[in-house]
């Protein structure tokens, strides 16, 4: 009896000191770690884990599983993480079709979801949720920034190209929302297509002044290599995904000089970003991609919120997330009413750094404090 009382007294004494006895936050990370899309998921996982490590927080526990880029597998993993691992927060999904399969279910069960990459439009608009926070962007954003750049540069004739799937149509719609010049070609390719000879022949015949293409991962590598060999000299631009760090090495020098738009770049000038890029290079021996940067911000935000509020107190934890009081590698960062970022978008150019490694450098700003086109439809 006396020991129980003593233990109780001790617990009370410690409880008064607060955080030391706060419930640990359990995080389930579902991301793509195998197959052709693995480069993106590995970068996201590494960026997230680095943020947790640098935050020094001992109360965040992460379980990671591979979704192999398959929606049905992602759903199974999410169910398992919620039911048997008892996670409080889910994160990590790269692809929009997987996010649409997992997120609505998870938030309906009262779990938090923090997006490191995918930002499908329904989740920013009519299907937004109080427990869903997108730390990356809304899908259209990068493409809108590219359209805006093409418009302000006064490019007269554009040829635009994207895969024939929802994020591809979103991409070209986002581009067209801000570009008002003439479109001499608008082509949808097969998702996962590897040979672009037919499209390149069309580009050659189109008489365009510039080409905009959204082809993430291996598709972009194939397109750029074939484009460089084709002798078509028309300059290319794209969203940051088409020229992200994960594909630059495989494209090689053919990418040099290409303009692309993103919310982040390794040379973005702020102390947190310098710290991040250095730490990432030391830890993993490569340069971080946009996916790593976004996941790093997600991890930092989560650690900041966990230090302020107990995750079991959902309202307090949600408020701590929404306040977004953390140092972002993107410099400034705020959530809009629909829990999607208000942020700046930059135009980057592919260059070689001092060590001869291909990377991106900011050359202009396309948007300042940009939101998304769907926030008005969100009733939060």
């Amino acid at each position: 009896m006396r020991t129980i009382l003593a233990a109780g007294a001790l617990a009370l004494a410690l409880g008064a000191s607060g955080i030391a006895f706060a419930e640990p936050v359990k995080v389930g990370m579902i991301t793509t770690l195998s197959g052709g899309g693995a480069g993106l998921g590995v970068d996201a996982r590494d960026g997230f884990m680095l943020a947790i490590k640098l935050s020094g927080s001992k109360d965040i526990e992460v379980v990671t599983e591979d979704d192999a880029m398959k929606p049905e597998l992602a759903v199974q993993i999410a169910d398992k993480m919620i039911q048997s691992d008892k996670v409080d927060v889910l994160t990590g999904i790269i692809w929009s079709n997987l996010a649409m399969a997992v997120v609505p279910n998870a938030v309906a069960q009262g779990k938090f979801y923090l997006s490191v990459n995918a930002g499908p439009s329904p989740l920013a608009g009519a299907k937004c949720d109080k427990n869903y926070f997108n730390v990356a962007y809304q899908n259209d954003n990068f493409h809108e920034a590219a359209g805006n750049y093409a418009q302000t540069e006064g490019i007269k004739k554009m040829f635009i190209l994207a895969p024939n799937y929802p994020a591809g149509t979103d991409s070209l719609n986002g581009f067209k929302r801000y570009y008002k010049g003439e479109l001499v070609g608008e082509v949808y390719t097969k998702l996962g297509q590897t040979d672009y000879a037919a499209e390149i022949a069309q580009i050659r015949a189109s008489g365009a002044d510039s080409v905009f293409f959204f082809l993430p991962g291996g598709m972009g590598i194939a397109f750029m290599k074939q484009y460089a060999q084709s002798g078509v000299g028309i300059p290319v631009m794209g969203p940051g995904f088409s020229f992200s760090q994960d594909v630059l090495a495989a494209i090689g020098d053919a990418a040099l000089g290409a303009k692309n738009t993103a919310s982040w770049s390794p040379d973005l000038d702020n102390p947190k970003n310098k710290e991040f890029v250095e730490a990432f290079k030391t830890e993993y021996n490569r340069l971080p991609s946009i996916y790593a940067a976004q996941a790093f911000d997600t991890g930092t935000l989560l650690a900041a919120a966990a230090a302020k509020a107990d995750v079991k107190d959902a309202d307090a934890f949600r408020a701590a997330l929404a306040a977004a009081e953390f140092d972002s590698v993107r410099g400034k960062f705020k959530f809009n009413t629909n829990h999607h970022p208000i942020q700046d978008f930059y135009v980057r150019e592919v260059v070689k750094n001092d060590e001869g490694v291909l990377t991106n450098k900011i050359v202009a700003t396309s948007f300042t404090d940009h939101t998304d086109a769907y926030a008005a439809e969100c009733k939060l």
Partner: protein
Amino acid sequence: MQTALIVEQLLNGLQFGVMLFLMAAGLTLIFGVMGLINLAHGSFYMVGAFACAAVAAATGSFWLGLAASLVAAAAAGALIEVTVIRRLYGRDHLDQVLATFALILILSESVRWLFGDFPLYLNIPPQLGGAVALPGGVQYPVYRLAIIAAGLLVGVALYALIARTRLGMRIRAGESDREMIGALGVDISTLYTIVFALGAALAGLAGAMVGALQSVQVGMGEPVLILAFVVIVIGGIGSIKGAFVGALLVGVTDTLGRILLPQLLAAAIGPAQAAGIGAALASMSIYIVMALILAFRPKGLYSAQG
């Protein structure tokens, strides 16, 4: 301009077809001789591309890489035939599909484990860089012309091998009657290993040549594998000639369909809808061709089994 575009597309179709032929030839040989459905054939394509990229990066020579791709894919093929595939000849096709599907997963993850998660860099050799002007005002990449030439050369060599040599005679005999050539004293298991390694080497060669144009990454073989199956079904299973004709047909249909269908539709329903619908129709075009051919020739154009 329009004629130049059509000519360029025809060449693109030819190049794509020739590449498909390299894949389909091995697949159809293996099916014809051993009666085996080999889903892992796309993995040899990947092995070839990775071997080429790794050796080219280490030595700086694409040509050494190309040689390495042949050796690596043939060695992987022979090893897998001796350890796994040999046990599957007597089983039914479902067991073969299951086992070779498992091989895809094992090979993909092994390659990922060896080479990491990010696509590798492999560029075309400088001797074949740039574009060349063809008669009629067409600018065409030299490297794609080289692929066409290499593919045609392999086609001729395969024909000579099968029609003119002792090994070819045994392969043809194996297609006609497996038990009988065994009974006549031909070492059937060595023959099978040779055929399997040959098929794998052709796939590896295709992977290395195309890898220089595309992205060298895990899982690159599977989309090509599906098309290669379409090719051998159109051409007639087991027939090299059928594989050749089928591959060119699929290559040209796919490439021309991708630009002509959206343009034809654009004239009919306006460019905005045509872009999406045309793209969807174009990706169906080869399957429509396959369905039409099977409706009139259920065993394919040149079926080896009569």
